[in-house]
């Protein structure tokens, strides 16, 4: 039984389609990244999975229960985008309340806050916190009571690189323990190495749902080869390779992945004319743009 399964989920706001026939499954222990531009429908999809927003049509099961039911909510943790708390409460008071709401001992509040690096400020009012600190309180509450599904809406925004690394380390451990994780992001480059599957959403449609390797294969974007020619040989090199020139000495050519070895053989055959060469595979951002642009003809 998958932790989350959606099929045919559509949602419109005042005639504007936010989600169109979205299908998605997440298995236990899987880390799934949800990617898309602003307004692509990421937050809407998350709110529907949480049961905060009813879909116009479609089926959703979360932890083998209807989305938003008491049974589903008992096993689901949520970190909203730009998470907020009452400014008059301290992090310790806020986390104690959340622990009680999940039937856990409030004594865990201090260790939880220590786990996200907030020990020193735990007694201060959240109103005095920076965005990154609030984000950590948000993460701390999402870790309460071994959730079986974590829904994290842009969880690393406002976190510095070190905190981000710590954050993903915590997620890895949760996934190893069997939690399913759905997290949204703007940048494929950030989540590529830390998730098992990538779902790209554009204008409410799922444009891709695959592993990074699968996305690379399907996008079939060309590999770029940059050749630094010897002085005065750039024109000859460019001519023989039927490639374009970039400046005085650089020659650039694009080739499909499967032609790469042949092209490199062509180039090394002219070794005497060449200073250096660089093989640049399609970047993660190129792959992301490839899929997210298909919906914008």
């Amino acid at each position, binding site marked *: 039984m998958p932790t989350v399964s959606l099929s045919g989920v559509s949602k419109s706001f005042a005639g504007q389609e936010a989600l169109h026939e979205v299908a998605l499954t997440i298995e236990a222990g899987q880390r799934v990244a949800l990617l898309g531009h602003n307004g692509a429908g990421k937050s809407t999809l998350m709110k529907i999975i949480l049961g905060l927003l009813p879909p116009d049509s479609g089926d959703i099961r979360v932890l083998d229960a209807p989305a938003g039911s008491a049974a589903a909510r008992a096993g689901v943790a*949520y970190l909203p985008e730009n998470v907020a708390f009452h400014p*008059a409460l301290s992090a310790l008071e806020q986390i104690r309340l959340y622990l009680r709401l999940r039937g856990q001992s409030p004594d865990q509040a201090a260790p939880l806050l220590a786990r996200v690096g907030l020990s020193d400020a735990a007694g201060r009012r959240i109103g005095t916190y920076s965005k990154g600190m609030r984000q950590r309180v948000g993460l701390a509450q999402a870790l309460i009571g071994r959730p079986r599904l974590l*829904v994290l809406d842009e969880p690393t925004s406002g976190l510095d690189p070190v905190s981000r690394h710590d954050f993903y380390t915590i997620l890895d451990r949760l996934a190893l323990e069997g939690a399913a994780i759905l997290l949204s992001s703007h940048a494929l480059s950030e989540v590529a190495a830390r998730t098992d599957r990538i779902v790209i959403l554009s204008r409410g449609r799922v444009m891709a749902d695959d592993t990074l390797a699968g996305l690379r294969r399907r996008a079939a974007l060309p590999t770029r080869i940059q050749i630094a020619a010897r002085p005065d040989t750039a024109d000859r090199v460019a001519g023989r390779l039927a490639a374009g020139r970039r400046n005085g000495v650089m020659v650039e050519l694009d080739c499909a992945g499967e032609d790469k070895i042949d092209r490199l053989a062509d180039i090394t055959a002219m070794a005497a004319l060449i200073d250096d060469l660089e093989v640049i595979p399609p970047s993660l951002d190129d792959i992301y743009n490839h899929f997210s642009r298909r919906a914008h003809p």
Partner: protein
Amino acid sequence: MKAILPLAMSEVRIALRNRWVAIIIATMVLFSLALAAAGNAPTGVAGIDRLSVTVASLTGLAVYLVPLVALLMGFDAIAGEVERGTLGLMLSYPVSRATLLLAKLMAHLGILALALALGFGSAAIVGFATDASALAGLSALLRLFWSALLLGACFLGLGYGISAIAGRPGPAAGLAIGVWLVLIVLYDLVLLAAVVADDGGRFTSDLFSWFLLANPADAFRLFNFGASGAAALASGVGGAAGVIPPLWALISIALWPFAAFLLALAAFRKVVP
């Protein structure tokens, strides 16, 4: 349901930090002491102790102040959470909307009870200190206390409903003041104008009482004046206390809190965080 207590305690803590508790208590105590001092003046009504006179004045005060304070505490309850962005996270927890709303009601009603107890209590102390027969007015004061709590619960519910419908704290505040003006001030003026225009016709004889009972603030006034037999001390609409049985007024003020809460819950269920 076991989530109610921690949620309510958190609400109380927030109200303490926001100085709401201090403001409401100070208001109640100051007004009550002022009226108790005024109640010590000779009334000209024979056979009534000074505390009973003070209770009559406090009833008139509570009709205005309790709904106002309740609406001021209630209007932010849902709209404020939507505005701050805290509602979505709260609703992702295994807590029902009814529980959440009940916890807020419990906290706000507790604060109101504390303020009323301190306010009315200080009035009672003044009464006992100056009049040996003031014990006679104690039952009326207790009745005023718990019926004022019912009135407060009713307007807290209306405040939550306004908060859920308005969706944002700004419009909710405006709407709350509007509801207070209509139910507490304009309603009686319109009724009195209608009675005058009717000149002893069917409206005055048949409908007037029902209109009074339908308004929780008027029912509260009728109940307290009618039950204490202090109608002689009442003025304006309160004078009708002589003709409407207090039990009917009690039924009205006992039903209103439930109706208001159910209304608020229905509106809250439509709120999308």
